[in-house]
């Protein structure tokens, strides 16, 4: 019984970060990480990179249960914020949303690899 509830949570905060950094965003390059699935769904991270800095992140999350929808609504903004702060995949998982955090981090790593960061 695998029901997918695709939800582009990234869209919201993407506009926020592009508004914040319009000039840099124009020059930024987008790298898309691989989709990593986990038991309750999966995540795919796209990053915009300028120089060695991540300027914005958008995430596609697939959620299979109402519990993961609720968890991701908190965990994903947290993970994005941490990744933007450190510009790396070296971030803590969100307590209670370990599998989503791991899928997010794995996908982020693959995007960073493509960007050679």
């Amino acid at each position, binding site marked *: 019984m695998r029901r997918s509830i695709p939800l582009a949570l990234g869209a919201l905060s993407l506009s926020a970060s592009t508004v914040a950094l319009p000039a840099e965003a124009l020059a930024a390059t987008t790298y898309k990480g691989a989709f990593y699935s986990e038991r309750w769904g999966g995540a795919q991270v796209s990053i915009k990179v300028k120089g060695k800095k991540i300027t914005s992140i958008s995430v596609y999350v697939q959620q299979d*249960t*109402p*519990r993961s929808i609720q968890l991701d609504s*908190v965990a994903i903004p947290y993970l994005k914020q941490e990744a933007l702060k450190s510009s790396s995949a070296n971030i803590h998982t969100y*307590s*209670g949303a*370990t599998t989503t955090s791991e899928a997010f981090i794995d996908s982020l790593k693959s995007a960073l690899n493509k960007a050679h960061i």
Partner: protein
Amino acid sequence: MSLTGPEIASADGQLALKPVSRARAWRSISFVAVFWTAVVLNGTVMFWLWLRDGGITNVNSAPALWTSAGRVTGLLGAYLLLLQVLLLARLPPLERSVGFDRLTVWHRRNAKLVMILVVAHVVLITIGYAGTVHISIFSQYSDLLSSYPGMITATVGTGLMIVIFASSLVIVRRRLRYESWYALHLFTYASIYLAYLHQIPTGNEFAASTVQSDWWLSLYIASGVLLIVFRLVRPGIRMWRHRLRVVAVERESPSAVSIWLEGSRLDQLGAQPGQFMLWRFLTGDRWWQSHPFSLSAAPTDSRLRITVRAAGDFSAGLADVPVGTLVLAEGPYGRFLGSRRRRQRVTLIGGGIGISPLRALLEELTAPPGFITVIQRNISAQDRALADEVDELARERGAVVHHVIGDHRDPDGLHQLTPERLHELVPHIEDNDVFLCGPPAMMDTTHDSLIAAGVPSSQIHSERFALAM
């Protein structure tokens, strides 16, 4: 009750074991073994799933602890709720090996456990989920109701369970009509179904695994099949085989009636004096409820008799049950049997309509003259039911009958059966087996008096005269 089958008194009053086929005994033992093995195995699988999903290893914060505890209480609560229904699903081998009376006691204890687990599940999950996403318990609860599938039905189901549970606590105090309690209890099935609806879509162990959710569903299906077979099909077959019908209704006292029933092959029921059955009278307004009544005469191959006091709406209405009414009888149940006698001297103490099973027991008891005493305790002389029959049977057996009359609500009538009075009425009472049956309060005080009079509790045999609710 033993697995070897019911004990039947032979013509000379000596107890003889009724032969039961070896094959049937083996079938019975294997069923019981399979049943308990299945209960333990599936319970183990359930715990293993919870553990594998990080039931303990993922607990790294307070909210994770509440959530994990909420999961295991929910799983166990739902599991024991199925067991709760199966304990009283009239599974014949289970009834033979455990006994209906003990099953009802287990059912009552298990009910408390289920209620604690279900309430703990609701509270712990809400606190745990709220803590994980840092919102208030109230917003989490409303989120659970609005966004999680099956949560509205689960809430209704839980509410129903609480009402049913509370009604069972209230009926113990006799503040609720048996009929209302019974009707409410039927909603247990609805509450289980309503609660089931949230388990697979939201259950951590089931939502993302077809194999696991199919296994969980199969537990419900298996329980449902057992219920249908043993609570519908088997009684139907029994009804067809015995064709039990009301043949006469006789008034015994202003407040009691006897109902005679006739059917075929009633010896196959294996009923003995002192036992009760669950009776369902198939008339338009009564078919949906069943009531426990003791046999008030020793059963024969073709006839049974019960004597009923006008206690509830149902038993009051039984005076008007039409002759010819089809009757479904489950049982026999109870271990209020002459075979439990250990002494030569026997005293039968019946309070009110509690005389019914004693009247049946008296019919099969044998002892030298003067060794049997019957005490009929009644509120008023005119309330005495079956008094003439008891006197007649007592005369045949050289038994002594005492009528103790007095309203326990009057100061004069209170504490009639004191230890001193019991000694007066029954010489050597401490050397008697005492069979006691009557209303719960009367039984409790009499039991205490008997103990105070020096009767060892192993010699006191009582029938609560109803299900051990």
